[in-house]
Structures are given as structure tokens and as C-alpha cells.
């Protein structure tokens, strides 16, 4: 089973090179492009229902009137699409595929064909999600958490046609998510086996870059937590399609059981996305501070602790579901404890920045923006983790704002940091710096405009799943009506400014400055390969001598020491 140390020749035809490719770099880019497409879908849904919230009853530009049923469907699908069909392909599948083989110094994934298959299954799952909008009855509108009894009963957005059994809102939603899980599980097996088995000579566990560690911990967390939801989803599908009573109280079923199964996956999923994003920061911050990452080993241990804790905090999503108050105490404490390891990781980033010679490049700006925004998200999470406050704020826009202050930085700032950092490596071209800076400020400011005001609306009691508030006197007054409008305008600016990013990608690919091998003076192995890396990545395979973060080492002339540089560093 030894992999031959020679570069297999690259596939020549268009189909095998760009579409049915088994090359990890092509597959990673395919994941990211699919993720971008799904982000456009999810963003459009958000635009439509945000517009409806600010200007109820008015005709929405580019869409038209939005009725309550479609409002529900749009909110539901926005949630699921952004988490599972944008976050996962950007941060886990996309980054994992692009970076793991290059950073550990090997030619490809352990199972390239399986890798290709997991992408195609993922693409089918995206198509199923989007196709659901076009079946009669519309897409599923029972909330992205799929809670029974609503989702178990057959009538939510049911397709009235005779072929409705599987081609109806709920079954298609479940099917789309299930296929995504299959794809992710296959991809996850690939990541773990590749990292364990295919590392370059000398790449010992504590010479592996942080992001590879974090991607693998995230994958492991995903694989452990997703099983219960798969089982729960099968039962839900049978309840919906066949009419079994797994969640039907009249037949002894328990709807709260599904909530447990859902959140046993749903909460670790947050960390599955957070860890790769933190890993991106862990790569960018040392490079642009010209300092070693502070407490590298400690944050790996901390994130392992966090991964273990992440599977015992799930019921903090269910404080108002009638769970035992003693259980609520347990989960409150667990939730607050899990912030400690992540605070540790953040502290390490701060300490890395401290006294460094900081370079404000595009990736660095995005990374710093991530830290600032995620801090607000994390701190409001501490409030919500305590059941006494959560019972008051549950299902309000306070939760929505908190959630977006965590997930938006993770998914989009994480993604953009990574793109601005690794774009020269994978395309051989530099991105336009000015456009990148405009993009950053036109994302950072509108994001805060959109979501910061929602904290106040939430505390005033605005419920998140209502499409029209005219009968809620506590909300239908100033300043909350204005806040709604501010938030919507912010969201529209936020979405429009993403076209700058797309334009930048397009123009830089065509006319961008050519990128050298190692434009950021970075240590990790991917920067020692060509830009863009050839099929097979390295020739010959690199041998690793140093850890990934040897910046400004006193015994080296350069302020960086690539991992495969055989010079001896004196420690004193």
C-alpha cells in the first residue's frame, strides 16, 4: 500500500481535468464554487424576507409579493442552506480538500475517487434543496430545525399532485440534508485517513499546521455527532411519508426526542464550522505578525477539550421545550464552560499579535475583523447560555443577532480570509488590493448595521418566525420600526457589496499580477510548491525539519524558516 513517490501524469481532457477530476485542488475549488452559488441562493432568500420585514405588504423588487407560506419556506431554507450548503463546503470540504494534502506534503487525498464521489453527492444534495422550491406546494417551511409535530405531519407545504410522496417539501428537505451528510461523512473519512497516513517524512503530529489539526478535529466532531440526527431523520421521514408515530404523542412518540437528536448534531456543527475558521486565523495571524503562534500545543489541546465538551451542551437550545430544570442547570454550566477553551484560543491570537511587526494585508484585515465580530457573538452567547436569560430571550431576534454574530464571521470572514490568503497559491495570480479593502469595509460596516440593531428588537420581544407584526403593539412602535428598516438596508448593502468580491476574482484571474511561490514569506509546505501547484503537488516530496511557525527566529538570517528548510535552528 505504499504510495509510489512519483507524480502520476495529469489528466488531459477538459472533462477529466475540470469536471470529473480526482485532483484534490480541483475538487476543493468545485466545492467552493458550489458554495458560492448556494450562498447566492441563501442570500437572495434573506434579501426577500428582510425586505418583507422592513416594508410589509409592499412588492419586493426582483421578487414580487411574499405571502406567509413562502416567508416560512424562505426563512427555513435560508437557515439550512447557509449552515450546511455554504458553511460546510467553504470551510470544511473546500478548505480541507485544498489544504490538507498540500500542508502535510503529499500528492493527493488517500482516496481520490471517493473524494470525487463525495463532491458529486454534495452537488446532488444542493440540487435537491433548490429543486424543492419548484415542486407544487413549495419548499419546506417548518423551520430549519425541522421540529415535529409540524414536520412529521404531512401537510406542511405539501405537494398536492399524485407524485407527492417523495417529491414534496418535507421529504425533499430531509433528503437534501441526508445526502449532504453522506457526502460529508465520505469526505471526513478521507481527511482523517489522509492526515494520519500520508504525511511527509518528518511531519510529526506537533509539526502539523494548526488548520490541519482543526480541520481534523472538526471532522471527528462531525462524524461523532451526526449519527443521532441520521437516525432521527430516518424516523422523521417515515413519520412524514408513511405515517408512523415515532414523534406522535398520541401513539407514545415524543417530539422532544427529535429536538435532542437534532441538537446533538446541531450544536457540535457550530464548532465544526468554527474550528476551521479559527485554523485559518491561526495560519494568517503568525504570518502577518512575523511571530510564532503563541502556545501552539496548548490550543490544540484546548480545541480537543472543546470538541469533547461540544457534545454535552446541546440541550441549551431546548430550555423552553419543557426539559427538567436540573438538566437545564447542567447544560447551562456546560455551555458556559465551553467558552473557556475558545477564549484560550482567542487569547493565543492576541498574544501572537502582541509585539509583532504587523502587516495590514488583505487576509490580515479579514482575520482581525473576524476576531472583533466573533467576540461580540461569543460574549452574547454567554448570556444565552444561562437558562435564566435564555428563557426570556428564546426565539427572539436577540438569538438571531447573536447567531449571526457568530456564524457570519465564521462562515464568511473565515472564507474571505482564506480566499485572500491562498488565492495566489491556487491560481498563480494576486487579488487586487484596493478592491479587497473596499470589499472588506463594505462587508464589515453593513454587517454591523444589519445585525447590531436586532439585539434591541430582540430584547423588546420581537419573535423570529413572524412575518408581519401589525398586531404586536410592543414592536410596532419607534424605534423598532426604524431598526427593522436600518437592518434591511444594511443587509441589502452587504449583499450588493459582495459583487465587488466576485468582480475582483474575475478581474484578478484575467489580469492579476503573477504570484510568486511564496508571496507572504510563509513557512508551511503549501507555499513551497509551485503557484498554482502542479498535478501531484511536489516533486520530489518535501522532508519536514521544523514546526510551522518559526518566524523571526534569532538564529536564522531570514525572518521565516520554511518547514522543509534543512538548516539547524539553535534554541537557547
Amino acid at each position, binding site marked *: 500500500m505504499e504510495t509510489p513517490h512519483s507524480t502520476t501524469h495529469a489528466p488531459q481532457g477538459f472533462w477529466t481535468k475540470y469536471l470529473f477530476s480526482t485532483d484534490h485542488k480541483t475538487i476543493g475549488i468545485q466545492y467552493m464554487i458550489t458554495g458560492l452559488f448556494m450562498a447566492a441562493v441563501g442570500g437572495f432568500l434573506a434579501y426577500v424576507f428582510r425586505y418583507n420585514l422592513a416594508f410589509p405588504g409592499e412588492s419586493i423588487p426582483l421578487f414580487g409579493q411574499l405571502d406567509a407560506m413562502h416567508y416560512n419556506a424562505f426563512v427555513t431554507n435560508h437557515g439550512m442552506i447557509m449552515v450546511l450548503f455554504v458553511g460546510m463546503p467553504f470551510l470544511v470540504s473546500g478548505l480541507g480538500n485544498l489544504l490538507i494534502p498540500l500542508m502535510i506534503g503529499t500528492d493527493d487525498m488517500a482516496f481520490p475517487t471517493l473524494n470525487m464521489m463525495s463532491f458529486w453527492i454534495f452537488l446532488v444534495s444542493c440540487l435537491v434543496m433548490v429543486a424543492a422550491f419548484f415542486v407544487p406546494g413549495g419548499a419546506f417551511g417548518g423551520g430549519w430545525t425541522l421540529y415535529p409535530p409540524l414536520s412529521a405531519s404531512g401537510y406542511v407545504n405539501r405537494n398536492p399532485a399524485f407524485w407527492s410522496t417523495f417529491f414534496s417539501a418535507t421529504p425533499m428537505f430531509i433528503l437534501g440534508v441526508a445526502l449532504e451528510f453522506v457526502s460529508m461523512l465520505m469526505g471526513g473519512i478521507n481527511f482523517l485517513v489522509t492526515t*494520519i*497516513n500520508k504525511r511527509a517524512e518528518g511531519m510529526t*503530529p506537533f509539526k502539523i499546521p494548526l488548520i490541519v489539526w482543526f480541520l481534523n478535529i472538526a471532522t471527528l466532531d462531525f*462524524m461523532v455527532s451526526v449519527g443521532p440526527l441520521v437516525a432521527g431523520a*430516518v424516523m422523521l421521514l*417515515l413519520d412524514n411519508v408513511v405515517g408512523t408515530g*415515532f414523534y406522535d404523542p398520541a*401513539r407514545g412518540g415524543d417530539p422532544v426526542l427529535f429536538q435532542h437528536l437534532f441538537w446533538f448534531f446541531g450544536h457540535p456543527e457550530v464548532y465544526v464550522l468554527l474550528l476551521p475558521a479559527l485554523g485559518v486565523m491561526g495560519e494568517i495571524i503568525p504570518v502577518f505578525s512575523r511571530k510564532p503562534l503563541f502556545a501552539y500545543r496548548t490550543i490544540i489541546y484546548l480545541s480537543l477539550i472543546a470538541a469533547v465538551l461540544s457534545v454535552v451542551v446541546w440541550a441549551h437550545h431546548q430550555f423552553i421545550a419543557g426539559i427538567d430544570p436540573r438538566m437545564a442547570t447542567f447544560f447551562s454550566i456546560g455551555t458556559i464552560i465551553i467558552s473557556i477553551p475558545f477564549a484560550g484560543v482567542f487569547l493565543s491570537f492576541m498574544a501572537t499579535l502582541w509585539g509583532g511587526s504587523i502587516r495590514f494585508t488583505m487576509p490580515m484585515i479579514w482575520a482581525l475583523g473576524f476576531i472583533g465580530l466573533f467576540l461580540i457573538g461569543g460574549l452574547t452567547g454567554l448570556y444565552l447560555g444561562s437558562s435564566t436569560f435564555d428563557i426570556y430571550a428564546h426565539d427572539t431576534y436577540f438569538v438571531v443577532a447573536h447567531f449571526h454574530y457568530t456564524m457570519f464571521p465564521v462562515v464568511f470572514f473565515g472564507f474571505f480570509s482564506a480566499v485572500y490568503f491562498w488565492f495566489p497559491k491556487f491560481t498563480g495570480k494576486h487579488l487586487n488590493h484596493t478592491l479587497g479593502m473596499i470589499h472588506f469595509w463594505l462587508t464589515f460596516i453593513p454587517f454591523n448595521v444589519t445585525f447590531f440593531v436586532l439585539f434591541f428588537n430582540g430584547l423588546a420581544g420581537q419573535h423570529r418566525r413572524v412575518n408581519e407584526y401589525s398586531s404586536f403593539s410592543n414592536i410596532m412602535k419607534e424605534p423598532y420600526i426604524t431598526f427593522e428598516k436600518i437592518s434591511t438596508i444594511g443587509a441589502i448593502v452587504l449583499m450588493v457589496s459582495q459583487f465587488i468580491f466576485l468582480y475582483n476574482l474575475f478581474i484578478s484571474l484575467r489580469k492579476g499580477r503573477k504570484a510568486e511561490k511564496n508571496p507572504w514569506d510563509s513557512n508551511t509546505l503549501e507555499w513551497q510548491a509551485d503557484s498554482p501547484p502542479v498535478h501531484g503537488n511536489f516533486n520530489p516530496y518535501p522532508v519536514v525539519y521544523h514546526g510551522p511557525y518559526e518566524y523571526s527566529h534569532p538564529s536564522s538570517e531570514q525572518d521565516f524558516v520554511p518547514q522543509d528548510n534543512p538548516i539547524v535552528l539553535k534554541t537557547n
Partner: protein
Amino acid sequence: MAEQTLSVSLKQVPQGRLGVWLLIVGELIIFGSLVVCYLLYRLRFPSWVEQTQHTSTFYGGLNTFVLLTSSYTIVKANDAALKKDLAKMSRYMLTTIFCGLIFLAVKSTEYAHEIGAGFTLTSPGLQATNPVGATFWSFYYIMTGLHATHVLAGMVTLFVVWLDARKGRNIHRVELGGLYWHMVDLIWIFLFPLLYIAK
């Protein structure tokens, strides 16, 4: 230096074997969750004992025997594969697949028997008199049904492996298929007492 040893010892596991083990972990978590859900309901409803009286210990026991036998034959197949005895390996693999076929046949007979008695996925007749009892049958069908699907998947996998291995290609895959087959067996070892013996 401790790092060095860790890295080397993990790398000695062939990557195919590592992949299958991770797949098995994923599968066991899915089935484990179903079993836990079933146990929670079973403890909540002692009246399910009436329903368990109707599951056929004979068919269940017969299938346990068949599956255990097939696990033995697949080990023999792997043993033959290691000794490069292709004819013997091929024979034992086909026996294993045949055992899977018997398992599915027995399962079908058992299902036909239960459905004939009115116990189906939703058990409409039972719902009128004992709606809680009907949910037991939903669990019975979902657990055994999902397991039977895995038996079928294992048979297909072994067949595909056999197509190559009988000609001496990719012989190491016999072990990987065998690992999966053992997992299917292991899951049954949990389902059998839970659904057929605990009455």
C-alpha cells in the same frame, strides 16, 4: 522522540483499513442512536412486552446462526486470501454471500408472517386499540429493516470485491469487506436480544 514513534506507528495501518474502521465508527453511531431511542421508549412503556411476544424468536435465532456462520466463512476467506489460495478464497466468499441471501430470505418470510398478522410499519389495526403498541412495530421494522439494508450492501460489496479478487487482483480488499461484514454481524448481535429475546 515520543512524537516520532506515534507518527510511525499510526502510518503502519494501511489506509484502506483505516478508512473502513472510520466508516464502521460512523455506522455504529447511527445504529447506536436508534438502539438508544428504542431503549428510552421501551423503558417508558412497559406495556410493549405484549408486543414483543409476537416477534419470532425462531426466525431471529435462525438468522443469528446464519450470520454468525457467514462471519466464520468470511474469516476463512480472508485466511485463504492471505495464503494466496484463490480457489478456496473464492469458495468461502461465495458461501458468505449465499449466507447473506439466506438471511434475507428468512427475514422476508418473517416479515410476511408479521404483516399477515397485522403488524406493519404503522399497524393500522393495532392503532385503533393500542396506539402505543403500534409504535413498537415501527421500531421493529426500522431497526431490522435498516440492518437488512446493510446486509444487502455488504453482499454487494463482497460481490464486487470477489469479481476482482478471484483473479488475484486487490486481494487485500477481502479483509476490508470482511471488516464491514463483521460490523453487520455485530449490529445484529445487539438487535436480536433487544427485539426477539427480551420478552
